């Protein structure tokens, strides 16, 4: 749609820029505040731009809460969950898309039902007790393993594999390829961009988990960076928002950077998969 009227054009252009700034403002203000001296943070009326780069906030945040270690934890947890989900999803999706077998319908509905059992929130009490009985409380196992398979990923892979003609599979079989060879050498190379998109969304989902890491980790050394931010707020009795915002920036940087670098892939895969991050 093109706008013909000049005044309408100007009004819409101003609106567009205004909406962009308002939506980005919380992140931008947090970034600025993370460099403010305590005296600047509490200035009235509030200052938006810091007078200098006051790095002390970052040092202080890292001293109060082991955010570095927590970043590593978040990274480990997110990478393993993503890889796990992709592997289980590809295998199960392949089974549902390319094979007919006894019990397929039952298997499919069994998986389907899990869509309305969000483990990391609703079943949190029995999940916690289960982890306790396994001796997994406060370990990476508890943070990773329960989340390495999901119905959404399986359905997503299945949907995608179905778009690849079955004739290809028949041809591969006649040439003597085993089902696994066909998956690895034909299906996967044809699914690169879809898997890339799914990986991104799963990574962000895992990185953003909050409730489960909150209850299952006791030791600061096992906590993820999301919990670190809350600990920083609790530790900062004086509510030194400069320090809290510095910690927030540390926790936010990885996903925000990935997002800025490959925004298009994010958006495309989100729309095509209908996945909730």
């Amino acid at each position, binding site marked *: 749609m093109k*706008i013909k009227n000049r005044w309408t054009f100007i009004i*819409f*252009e101003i*609106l*567009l*820029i205004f909406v*962009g700034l308002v*939506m*980005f403002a*919380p*992140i931008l*203000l947090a970034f600025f*505040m993370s460099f403010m001296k305590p005296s600047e*943070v509490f200035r009235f009326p*509030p200052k938006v731009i810091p007078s200098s780069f006051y790095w002390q906030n970052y040092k202080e945040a890292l001293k109060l809460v082991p955010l570095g270690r927590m970043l590593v934890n978040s990274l480990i947890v997110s990478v393993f969950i993503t890889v796990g989900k992709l592997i*289980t999803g590809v*295998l*199960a999706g392949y*089974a549902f898309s390319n*094979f007919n*077998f006894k019990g397929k319908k039952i*298997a499919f509905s069994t*998986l389907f039902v*899990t*869509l*309305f*059992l*969000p483990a990391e*929130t*609703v*079943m*949190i*009490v*029995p*999940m916690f007790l289960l982890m306790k009985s396994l001796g997994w409380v406060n370990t990476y196992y508890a943070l990773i*393993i*329960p989340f390495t*398979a999901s119905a959404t990923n399986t359905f997503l892979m299945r949907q995608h594999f179905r778009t690849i003609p079955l004739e290809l599979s028949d041809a591969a079989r006649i040439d003597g390829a085993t*089902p696994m060879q066909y998956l690895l050498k034909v299906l996967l190379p044809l699914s690169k961009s879809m898997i890339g998109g799914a990986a991104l969304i799963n990574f*962000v989902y895992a990185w*953003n988990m*909050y*409730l489960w890491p*909150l*209850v299952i980790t006791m030791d600061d050394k096992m906590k993820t960076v*999301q*919990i670190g*931010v*809350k600990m920083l*707020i609790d530790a900062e009795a004086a*509510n030194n928002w400069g320090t809290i915002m510095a910690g927030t920036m540390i926790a*936010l940087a990885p*996903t925000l950077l990935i*997002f*800025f670098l490959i*925004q298009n892939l*994010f958006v495309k895969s989100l729309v*095509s998969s209908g996945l*909730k*991050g």
Partner: protein
Amino acid sequence: MRKLTPYFLLIPTFVIIILFIYTPAFNSFKMSFFQETYFGDKKVFVGFDNYIDLFSDNEYYNVLKNTFIYSFVSVGLTIFLSFLISQLLILDLPGTKVVRTLIFSPYAVSPAISATLWAMLFTPTAGLFSYLFQITFNLDVKWLTTKPYSMIAIIAATVWKMLPFDLIFYIAALQNIPDSILESSLMDGANGWIRMWRIKFPLVTPITFYLFIMNFTTTMFSSFGIIDIMTRGGPLNSTTNMIYRLYLDGFAFQDNGLASAQSVVMFGIMSIITYLYFKFVEGKVHYQ
């Protein structure tokens, strides 16, 4: 051998979901009929007592009310605003690409971090939002600690966080509307505002329904981080929703029976949502 292949392929997924979804779900159901003795050493079968306790407690109705207000207001606002903003973004105005990146950026921000950012904006001493509100209305509101402002504050953070998700889907949907439909409406002399609500909005109804359900589950389940960081359910439990109450009963008060009964109630709600989703949305939404 080939016959067994699909079963081998399914093993990893099913081991995980049986161990970590079905087992705890079953335990949740079972535990909701038991109560632990005073010293926590024995579990006693109590039938529906946990459910009766839950629903004879006025506080739980308050929680349901909070959940209802929080979810519906957040979802309604998000859908309304994102539909409006999506109109701006499909106009191909100069700079749309840059602005789009800025507008989508909250998608990369976790609920917990969104909450921290908004807690900062709403803080009475240093928050820019508090200041702007003060100079505009000359009111000094303690946003996070007084009723009903704390509810407004968590809704603001939630809408901001959810908006990009909806926006992405609306943009995709609006770009799929054939030009011929819009052109014929232009001939009929419909102005922009009418065209937006009478023609475009009905055309994207399936997407709206999909977004409604997705947003509703987000506010039901993933809102925990926002509430825990911004208000901790307060003041006076006025922002305690179902998931927050479940967490309090399960972990702060360690009443596993009562918490499990709440889990079962939430399963019920989730089942209804999933049923509605598949009845009305699946198959009608074309993502590409």
